[in-house]
């Protein structure tokens, strides 16, 4: 690992001041992704500003019946939090589908949003990568791209966002609270991550020096009919080929409201208002689910090794919506897909 300086922030204002003073500094919280990338020489900060002791570790109910999750709440604590399990089981399930318990004990809520792609070329400093070294080229477009994106890609980057948690947060319309040099603001989850375009070095729309302070979930009625279905090469502790966050609010045989988001297929959690509109008001059946899947996957484009993801995603969406409608969400310990 490269040499760097270390400093501990006392509070949010202190952290924002410290990062503004050093353009090559980075925040560190759980460190599970950043330290790994520093060992690989992909990230080379001059200074790490330790925010792990800031008072951002609580989960609180909001006035409108939602939850405000502090940015430093560990992934494991969030997954097992009684209010999350009770009101947002889709989020709990998605978190438990990702990483290992050791990593979930370390990884923070804010850090999960900011983890970087696991594209092998991004990690390998001997190969060109526009995300790591803008302008150097994309090795994945014509390389080994089995794990890569099928939606929202550009000629400059076909990397995927690796998070499971973020797929559920996207489906649940989370908001991200951010503190920056210009004060505090709130970013809708759909606007938080971005597509690669011709600047894939930017994973998010955060500005340099911004600090995530909390993630907020609005009150919702998706605690009964939901499923997080993750398809991967081994049954645990692997990144998604395709994952689906599905949530329904049923009114008898009709769908009153619906949420649908995909992971493992794009540079950000993939959601589309038209796919959810096709579910809303429609009858609960396979044809409805298949139509929503087709709309969500519109424009999907496979590369040499990942075209299978288009069919896989189509079927996984139908299966996840079926599980949600039946009220039998995918178990994250019994791996049989039913």
């Amino acid at each position: 690992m490269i040499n760097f300086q270390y400093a501990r922030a006392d509070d949010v204002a202190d952290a924002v001041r410290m990062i503004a003073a050093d353009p090559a500094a980075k925040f560190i919280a759980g460190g599970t992704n950043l330290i790994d990338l520093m060992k690989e020489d992909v990230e080379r900060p001059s200074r790490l500003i330790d925010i792990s002791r800031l008072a951002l570790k609580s989960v609180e109910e909001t006035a409108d019946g939602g939850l405000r999750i502090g940015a430093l709440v560990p992934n494991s604590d969030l997954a097992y939090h009684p209010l999350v399990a009770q009101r947002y089981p889709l989020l709990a399930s998605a978190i438990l589908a990702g990483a290992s318990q050791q990593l979930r004990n370390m990884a923070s809520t804010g850090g999960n949003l900011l983890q970087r792609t696991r594209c092998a070329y991004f990690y390998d400093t001997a190969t060109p990568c526009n995300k790591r070294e803008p302008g150097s080229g994309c090795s994945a477009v014509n390389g080994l791209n089995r794990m890569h994106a099928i939606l929202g890609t550009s000629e400059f980057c076909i990397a995927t966002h690796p998070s499971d948690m973020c797929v559920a947060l996207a489906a649940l319309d989370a908001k991200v609270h951010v503190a920056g040099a210009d004060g505090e603001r709130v970013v809708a989850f759909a606007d938080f991550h971005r597509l690669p375009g011709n600047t894939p070095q930017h994973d998010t729309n955060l500005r340099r020096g911004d600090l995530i302070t909390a993630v907020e979930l609005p009150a919702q009625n998706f605690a009964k009919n939901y499923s997080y279905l993750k398809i991967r090469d081994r049954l645990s502790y692997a990144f998604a080929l395709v994952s689906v966050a599905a949530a329904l609010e049923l009114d008898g045989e009709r769908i009153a409201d619906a949420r649908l988001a995909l992971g493992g297929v794009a540079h950000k959690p993939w959601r589309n208002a038209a796919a959810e509109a096709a579910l809303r008001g429609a009858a609960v059946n396979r044809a409805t689910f298949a139509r929503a899947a087709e709309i969500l996957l519109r424009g999907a484009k496979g590369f040499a090794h990942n075209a299978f993801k288009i069919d896989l995603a189509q079927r996984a969406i139908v299966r996840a919506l079926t599980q949600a409608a039946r009220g039998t969400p995918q178990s994250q310990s019994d791996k049989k897909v039913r």
Partner: protein
Amino acid sequence: MALARKRATDEPIQVPDKIALSLNVNGVERRLDVAPWTTLLDALRDHLDLTGTKKGCDHGQCGACTVLVDGRRINSCLTLAVMKDGAKITTIEGLAKDGALHPLQQAFIDHDAFQCGYCTPGQICSAAGLIAEGKAKTADEIRELMSGNICRCGAYPNIVAAILQAMGRS
């Protein structure tokens, strides 16, 4: 080479002084001076000579470096020692009490839950964390919540049996 990595600024980095910290390791207060980039794993192994904790992949993928920090299992290879100043660390060396093996250590022997043994300290510390969490009740749940610990010898069935025994569910 063309792709040589640069920092965001060309300013030279001043190499910082070592940072003094204290860790309570297996019940003993230890003071040490480390560079900021020293991982908890390297601090334990190279500074405190506690070599029971193993360095496997050094990237958080194998679990051989698992230790308990304030009672929670984590990957010590992805943790900076300076960030854990004041923490209570338990390693494999700290599990046996008064000359008696920890129930998990005894269960791993009883069930022959290892071949080469390299992953075993991490497996046992991880299992101790798992039991403290209280979320795993069935063999399926143990397998899922132990998936961060890889055993290349493939002793998994015996590891699950050993953990079930230590949980009193064998």
